[in-house]
């Protein structure tokens, strides 16, 4: 069931706010959609990667001669064939497509082959002889702090970077007078939490197909299930040493991403190089096991949160400390560290705030961005911490939040510009709908309710590599029959970006979404979009689409106005017609209007672009967290917790999300429920478990993604705050709704059985262990007991922002 607080079409939109089936829905439901692995080209070879059997080892030698001479093998690559380093972030260029000198994790690609079929390719891998010298593995944050273990990143070691053993990135920031804030408190609190790593588990195993048109033209085409065709394009140019204009990247419809297909990957680069070497198309499709090694998923994070409160529940200060287990490479890690400290401040008015974060390297598959990127872990910690404080202060957990909410149109303590904010309304809705006041603390033993809130970005305020160019551009072409085609590099990963784009253009031009053709995610054909990450596409590509469509409408209106003698200001585009607002009978249908416009304003081609306003805070690290807008969510979870088995069954979830404006209600609600699902999986089931540094569960069977039988009913409420800068007022929905659900589960377990599991996932054994502690009269808690010693150094001190009145500047 879904409830919208007010009819979305009240503001006069015709298709924005509607419920049309997505334009790609029927192709997907008939099996017509061509995903990367569905591509078959003549003479195509099959590529496979040889992966390291060791966690940490020097690479002494590789002999590929036997593999190369196997009949049916057409190409073999090793690290020396692709010696140029890359990485998604300019500050973390630490990857090779195939390992050089050393391997850093079990599963790291070491060699690649292309052969006539998969069986031959597999056989060839077995014929590659690699000699390793094993090194002691670094398997945990504690290992990373151990000075007796070898360094993982030899490059950094050579640079003599003095931030500490295995440290990949650290940040220490202090906003305002933190000691003063704690001094003003009546009570101070401190808690430790741990969030175990987990992975995206997209249903589609990563796949890429490369084709090379030989010299002199020398052009490479790569189809890939990627969320970031633009960054992949740049990486290919760099690593293959090809001019960018000789590379075409086509992102195929992505069969699930969740952040896991946002890095350039070895199989993409190897497919490209092998196609160039063999002169034949090459396809790589990872096995499910390999998808677990490609990873780039949720960081394991150890956290300490300290707060100061007045007796009346007013927050006076917060100090948040994190340690991230980054796995073997940088990936998005330099941003991930700061994300573990950035968005706590967006939901609450925190007068003084200190953040210390550090990311270490370990010999495990590299971590990166998963839905919520770096923010679900601290959100879990913060919201559980507040739940405990509410108990201590004798204040209802919802009231404690309400007492400290951030004001709409204000700056957070760390200089994040908060504009539209429906958090209070979201909280009031789930409070009421769930019957919270009659349930919290009052349900029978074994049943409980939990509450939490969250907030997320509508797109990272800065691009991944520094530049002042637009972050998204959209072109529109109208043909003589009235056909409208939209061109955008945005890639649909299931979040519905294709439908969002055509809906916006249809709205502006007075057409239906299904009337609009879309060319997407092709670096030859479409203008830039930076990719489907950080919940940026609706806000950025959507705004570019609005601008392009308005410019097209201006052209058509100008021609129609001239033709009909109706002033432009009185023209309306709606229901496939352009007509006089004051006399709707005067007008013409869209194809006729296009005919007139084609004479007067040819070519009927327009473009729009979007760039975020200047948002970065005035400090190092201030580039992580700023966004043109923030979404807000509040959730109540009701569950049963079996005290004998520790098994938790979630019965119902109420969730209210400030979407700004729903472009398509079905898609938005789908993102909310899907986020709840992923959150419940992380809260109760999903984790990457390691045994002696080897991944213990690289299979769908053992990873335990929830089935139909674990998924509760979800009641979704959309709050529309009409963001002043969002397209039609819209904000993000793909990631934010995940955030409150995980801590709400933990808090509901406390309400049900009176124990705290300060560690995710809350597997049933942990609940039982906490209950056993309770029975023994010990602290009824399972969770980390200490953080390893680490010197975070002197903080960068930042003055509080000047609270100039954003409301006057921006509020509608």
């Amino acid at each position: 069931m879904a409830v919208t607080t007010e009819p979305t079409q009240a503001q006069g939109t015709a298709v924005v706010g509607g419920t049309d089936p997505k334009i790609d829905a029927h192709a997907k439901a008939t099996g017509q959609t061509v995903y990367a692995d569905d591509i078959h080209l003549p003479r195509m070879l099959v590529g496979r990667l040889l992966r390291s059997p060791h966690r940490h080892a020097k690479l002494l030698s590789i002999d590929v001669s036997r593999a190369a001479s196997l009949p049916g093998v057409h190409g073999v690559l090793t690290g020396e064939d692709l010696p140029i380093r890359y990485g998604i972030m300019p500050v973390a260029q630490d990857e090779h497509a195939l390992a050089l000198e050393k391997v850093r994790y079990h599963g790291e690609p070491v060699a690649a082959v292309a052969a006539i079929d998969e069986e031959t390719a597999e056989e060839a891998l077995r014929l590659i002889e690699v000699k390793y010298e094993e090194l002691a593995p670094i398997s945990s944050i504690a290992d990373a702090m151990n000075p007796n273990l070898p360094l993982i990143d030899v490059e950094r070691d050579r640079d003599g970077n003095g931030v500490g053993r295995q440290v990949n990135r650290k940040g220490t920031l202090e906003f305002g007078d933190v000691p003063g804030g704690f001094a003003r408190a009546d009570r101070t609190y401190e808690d430790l939490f741990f969030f175990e790593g987990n992975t995206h588990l997209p249903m589609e195993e990563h796949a890429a197909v490369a084709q090379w048109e030989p010299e002199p033209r020398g052009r490479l085409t790569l189809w890939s299930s990627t969320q970031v065709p633009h960054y992949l394009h740049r990486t290919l140019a760099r690593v293959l040493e090809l001019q960018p204009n000789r590379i075409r990247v086509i992102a195929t419809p992505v069969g699930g991403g969740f952040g896991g297909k946002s890095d350039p990957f070895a199989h993409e680069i190897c497919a490209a190089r092998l196609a160039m070497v063999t002169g034949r198309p090459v396809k790589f499709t990872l096995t499910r096991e390999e998808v677990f090694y490609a990873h780039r998923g949720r960081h394991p994070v150890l956290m300490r949160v300290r707060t100061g409160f007045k007796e009346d529940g007013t927050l006076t200060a917060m100090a948040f400390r994190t340690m991230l287990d980054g796995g073997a490479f940088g990936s998005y890690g330099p941003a991930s560290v700061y994300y573990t400290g950035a968005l706590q401040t967006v939901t609450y008015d925190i007068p003084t705030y200190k953040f210390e974060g550090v990311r270490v390297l370990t010999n495990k598959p590299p971590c990166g961005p998963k839905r919520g990127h770096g923010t679900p872990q601290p959100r879990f910690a913060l919201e559980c911490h507040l739940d405990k404080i509410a108990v201590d202060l004798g204040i209802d957990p919802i009231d404690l939040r309400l007492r400290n909410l951030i004001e709409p149109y204000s700056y957070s303590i760390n200089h994040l510009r908060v504009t539209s904010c429906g958090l209070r309304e979201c909280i009031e809705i789930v409070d009421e709908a769930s019957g919270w006041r009659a349930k919290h603390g009052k349900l029978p033993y074994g049943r409980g309710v939990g509450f939490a809130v969250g907030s997320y970005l509508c797109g990272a305020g800065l691009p991944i590599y520094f530049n002042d160019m637009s972050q998204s551009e959209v072109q529109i072409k109208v043909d003589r029959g009235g056909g409208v085609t939209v061109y955008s590099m945005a890639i649909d990963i299931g979040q519905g970006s294709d439908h969002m784009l055509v809906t916006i253009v249809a709205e502006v031009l007075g057409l239906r979404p299904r009337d609009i053709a879309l060319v997407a995610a092709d670096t030859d054909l479409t203008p830039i979009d930076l990719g489907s990450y950080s919940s940026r596409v609706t806000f950025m590509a959507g705004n570019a689409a609005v601008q392009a469509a308005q410019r097209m409408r201006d052209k058509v209106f100008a021609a129609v106005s001239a033709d009909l003698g109706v002033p432009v200001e009185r023209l309306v585009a709606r229901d496939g017609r352009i007509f006089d607002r004051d006399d709707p009978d005067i007008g013409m249908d869209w194809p006729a209007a296009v005919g007139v416009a084609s004479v007067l304003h040819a070519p009927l081609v327009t473009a729009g672009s979007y760039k975020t306003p200047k948002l970065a805070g005035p400090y190092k690290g201030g580039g992580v967290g700023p966004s043109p807008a923030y979404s807000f969510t509040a959730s109540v979870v009701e569950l049963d917790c079996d005290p004998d088995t520790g098994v938790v069954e979630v019965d119902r979830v109420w969730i209210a999300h400030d979407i700004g404006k729903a472009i398509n209600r079905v898609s938005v609600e789908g993102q909310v429920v899907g986020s709840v699902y992923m959150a419940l999986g992380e809260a109760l089931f999903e984790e990457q478990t390691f045994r002696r540094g080897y991944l213990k569960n690289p299979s769908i069977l053992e990873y335990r993604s929830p089935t139909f039988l674990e998924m509760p009913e979800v009641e979704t409420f959309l709050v529309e705050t009409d963001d002043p800068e969002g397209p039609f007022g819209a904000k993000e929905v793909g990631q934010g709704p995940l955030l409150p659900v995980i801590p709400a589960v933990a808090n509901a377990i406390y309400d049900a059985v009176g124990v705290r599991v300060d560690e995710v996932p809350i597997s049933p054994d942990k609940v039982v262990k906490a209950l056993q502690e309770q029975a023994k009269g010990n602290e009824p808690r399972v969770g980390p007991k200490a953080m390893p010693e680490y010197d975070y150094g002197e903080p960068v001190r930042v003055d509080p922002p000047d609270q100039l009145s954003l409301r006057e500047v921006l509020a509608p």
Partner: protein
Amino acid sequence: MAVTPTSKQLVALNINGDDYELAITPSHTLLEVLREDAHLTGTKHGCEQGECGLCTVLIDGRPQFSCLTLAVEVHGSEIRTVEGLASGGELHPLQRAWGETGASQCGYCTSGMLMSAQALLERNPSPSRTEIREALAGNLCRCTGYQAIIEAVELAAVRMRGAA
């Protein structure tokens, strides 16, 4: 008759009502034959070990994993895949409902999910929510949280009952 591991066998398959006669290596699964020999790429794969549900097809009306079925074993069986759901130019009621409720996000689980749903509705035209959950419990989806899928099956069931 000497049979060696490399001998291909001639297999007659009826897929979505079409007769195929294919020379198949015995070790090839129905999934491989559908995608690579019959070029029916609508059927997907996500683990190839019977753990995810993506490759579900109907074999004589029952949903089974094509990744764990040898093509030579279903010689003479009636096989249905996602490509056989629509009739003529008309979407199947499940396919139409799928679009309306938003039951596909990335769409990668959709084919297998539809086949499990179709088998359910053939056996039970009025399934309860619990029955839908149980019938589809072998099909994983990472995007939707399943709710829209359940709603789509319910919606299609109502329409199919109305049409019957």
